[in-house]
């Protein structure tokens, strides 16, 4: 795969599997009616169930089941018509029940697949091991008081999908692309908003190394709660290097849970107390197994949106885009939708270029999402129209676009205001050409002597003389005619 860590004894390859916790988009929690909105005041979104009060019982929120099935379908995965909730028992101050309701040996979704588009144009298939539903814990806040820990139970009971990949990833880059692709799929499906900063998507990475070409799996370490794609790639890189160093110096790797410190750029073990659990899983007797029929699945399937892979395929065939450009455009549904508005009834490739190069450039520079784009898709499309009907030249279009970004005005208004209409009328261009030719007889001679490269210079002069308003195509056509006359 190209990513090899050179050691003194071996070349080493990486084996990576990811466990992603994706918060289910639902108004209410997995087992209670309490709301799930982010950013509410501490302990304001907590029912008696979420607080683990005596005698309280969980009642399954069926919306979450639908969301899990929808996600499973998006991952082209096996949907299990019967699955079971199990209790994962451990003590922590922000785990009010003393157990997390999760799924253990009978998850709602089984094996599936995610296809990655690599930058070199190739694709990689990554296996999904399973997807299961579980509830989130609350939050412990240790830094508000020197002796005390504060607990916020707003998150307690919020529905999560744990999505476990097979150990199919071989490079930090693949891991990053996988995470982005998974996020993209879930966002398309509307089952997770994928917001890593708000913690609605979290990732644990299982990392091990082995001599290149070996088939054995060596001891892995789990890096917990990595909260960005960049940190994920850094953490994997660091951890793999650490394994290689340990092996090459004759040591052994212990299976353990580690944390990534993004400030220091290193992983370190969690205190053993924090993970040395025997979770004592057993089926939750408060809940019945989740059971549904084929019709339930079919109904959800019928409502599935077009997913990134399908959209990408369509963009390639419908708009003649390259796989790479189509891949870039479909990652975020909002971007793809924007592009479609721009491209509809126009030159798809040109639309893609403008969206990817010009628009994304502006958005990146401003650090805003497409939803906050200063240029609407409709206006950008209009700008392409003005080029197509020769009202403005490509060069002028760039200028108009900049003005659109600055002012938010429509391209028509800007062209009008600034008198930027391209000259396609041959009269003024003829005049300009005659003037340039008269003043530069030597260049005319050169051209006529066979040095056709000076044509570019002539076009430039004519454009200059017309303040850039001359239609370049018309201009070079007329020039050619006159020079060769």
């Amino acid at each position, binding site marked *: 795969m190209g990513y090899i860590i050179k050691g003194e004894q071996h070349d080493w390859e990486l084996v990576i599997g990811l466990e992603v916790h994706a918060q289910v988009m639902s108004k209410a929690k997995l087992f209670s009616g309490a709301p799930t909105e982010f950013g509410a005041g501490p302990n304001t979104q907590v029912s008696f169930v979420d607080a683990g*009060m*005596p*005698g309280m*019982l969980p*009642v399954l929120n069926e919306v979450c089941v639908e969301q899990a099935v929808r996600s499973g379908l998006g991952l082209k995965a096996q949907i299990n018509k019967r699955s079971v909730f199990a209790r994962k028992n451990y003590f922590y101050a922000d785990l*009010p029940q003393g*157990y997390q309701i999760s799924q253990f040996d009978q998850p709602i979704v089984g094996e599936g697949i995610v296809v990655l588009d690599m930058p070199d144009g190739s694709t990689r298939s990554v296996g999904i091991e399973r997807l299961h539903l579980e509830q989130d814990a609350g939050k412990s806040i240790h830094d508000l008081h020197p002796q005390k820990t504060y607990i916020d139970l707003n998150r307690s009971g919020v529905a999560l999908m744990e999505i476990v990949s097979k150990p199919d990833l071989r490079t930090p880059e693949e891991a990053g692309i996988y995470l982005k692709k998974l996020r993209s799929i879930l966002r398309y499906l509307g089952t997770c908003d994928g917001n890593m900063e708000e913690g609605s998507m979290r990732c644990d990475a299982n990392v091990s190394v082995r001599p290149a070409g070996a088939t054995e799996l060596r001891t892995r370490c789990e890096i917990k709660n990595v909260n960005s794609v960049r940190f994920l790639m850094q953490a994997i890189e660091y951890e793999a290097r650490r394994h290689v160093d340990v092996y090459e110096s004759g040591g052994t790797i212990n299976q353990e849970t580690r944390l990534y410190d993004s400030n220091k750029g290193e992983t370190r073990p969690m205190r053993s107390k924090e993970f040395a659990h*025997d979770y*004592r899983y057993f089926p939750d007797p408060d809940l019945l197994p989740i059971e549904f029929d084929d019709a339930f699945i079919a109904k959800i399937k019928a409502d599935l949106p077009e997913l990134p892979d399908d959209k990408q395929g369509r963009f390639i065939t419908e708009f003649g885009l390259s796989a790479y450009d189509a891949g870039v455009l479909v990652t975020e549904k909002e971007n793809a939708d924007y592009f479609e508005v721009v491209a509809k009834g126009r030159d798809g490739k040109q639309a893609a270029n403008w969206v990817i190069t010009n628009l994304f450039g502006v958005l990146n520079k401003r650090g805003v999402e497409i939803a906050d784009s200063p240029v609407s898709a409709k206006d950008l499309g209009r700008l392409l129209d003005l080029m197509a009907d020769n009202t403005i030249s490509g060069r002028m279009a760039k200028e108009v676009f900049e003005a659109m970004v600055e002012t938010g005005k429509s391209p028509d208004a800007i062209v009008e205001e600034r008198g930027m209409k391209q000259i396609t009328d041959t009269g003024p261009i003829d005049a300009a050409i005659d003037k340039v030719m008269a003043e530069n007889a030597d260049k005319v001679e050169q051209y006529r002597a066979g040095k056709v490269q000076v044509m570019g210079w002539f076009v430039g002069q004519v454009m200059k003389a017309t303040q850039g308003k001359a239609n370049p195509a018309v201009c070079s056509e007329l020039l050619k005619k006159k020079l060769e006359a």
Partner: protein
Amino acid sequence: MSELTSLTIAAAREKLAKKEFSALELTDAHLAAMERAKDLNAFITMTPDLARERARESDKRLFAGQAGALEGIPLGIKDLFCTEGVLTTAASHILDGFTPQYESTVSQKLRDAGSVMLGKLNLDEFAMGSANITSYYGPVKNPWKPKGRNAELVPGGSSGGSAAAVSAHLAMGATGTDTGGSIRQPAAFCGIVGVKPTYGRCSRWGVVAFASSLDQAGPMTRTVRDAAIMLGAMSGFDPKDSTSAQLDVPDFEAALTKGVKGLRIGIPKEYRPAGLSPELVALWDKGVEWLKAAGATPVEISLPHTKSALPTYYIVAPAEASSNLARYDGVRFGLRVDGKSLDEMYAKTRAAGFGAEVRRRIMIGTYVLSAGYYDAYYLKAQKVRALINKDFTDAFDKVDAILTPTSPTPAFGIGEKFDDPIAMYLNDVFTVPASLAGIPGASIPAGLSADGLPLGLQVLTRRWDEETLFRVCQALEDAAQFPLLPAV
């Protein structure tokens, strides 16, 4: 006033309707009896003010002709049911000061039916026990005394406070909960009727959980009719409990008059273990004769996995309990004993807050669920549980009801069997199989031992067939003419 406390629910209902006395008078009579019988220690919390307030409301409804099914009937609530604004302890130190902001579904239904809560009844801590001796609030005394001896007897458990209160006429009825026999065995020990309905008949919402797959609420009363009335008010689907059944509640009271003619009554041959009192064997035979005389046909049946029921129960119930009781951690409510670290706080709080029997079961449950033991214990127990269930399914192909003793012995003395948990667990040998199978069961007071102590017979029927259960119980009650304790 003792004439008011001696009434059955059915009789009081009529007399209240006829305005022979008021709900307030009826409640006051019981509050007075509770005061007089304080030494039984049946109540953890008495709520006289609340009771009078609700009795007055009942009187208004009675006056307005809007009486509910239990209008003005004073009841005791086992202190395992969460009651809004009233201390709820589960008889445990760890729930110190816990006053719920919510009312359990069952106690709410009883309230909606017009009943008057007198207070919260003592029990074994977290309903774990068969003698009501594990309560943090002290043991409950059985109102029955052995003939010629001045011994204090246990009321059975875990619903010991409920059984004692109803037996001693401190309440007209009481809620109990039954996980392995906690309604039926104390009912037998105290000479009253106790019904554990089908698992899923009554909502578990708001009941402090012991073993979720077994826990079931039920009525404890002095007559079969009263139990039928009370169960009718307690039952019904509750969307807040995923294991409660979406079934209509039958008219249990209407079933009482149907008799047992033509019913086939199963007599399991495996229910004769060593240690079964000969008096109970004799009473059992008598019970068979009574039902025969009433037109039923006894049939010998086999429940081959009976001997595995007790060990299975003592894996399943502690396993679930060990997880259910994890929430008592000192963080959000109840007792907290501070420590230098979170783990130390947990350890100190739970060591101080839980009694020995609860700690024992948490340890057993933790052990049987732990890695390396799960398959050998918990998983195997689940398999055996399925076989026990099949025993009953097969048996009910041949019979309509099953008759057995409720417990192997009558009530024993406070202090006996206390050092030997296994001997204590054997109390549940006849009640546990039905709990594991989720089928309904009832204990009927059917006779007295030579010592003059109550002896109970147990009736079991198919899932959701409480109507047949009540029919058989009524026939036994009619034949036994059991001498209830007089009201004092």
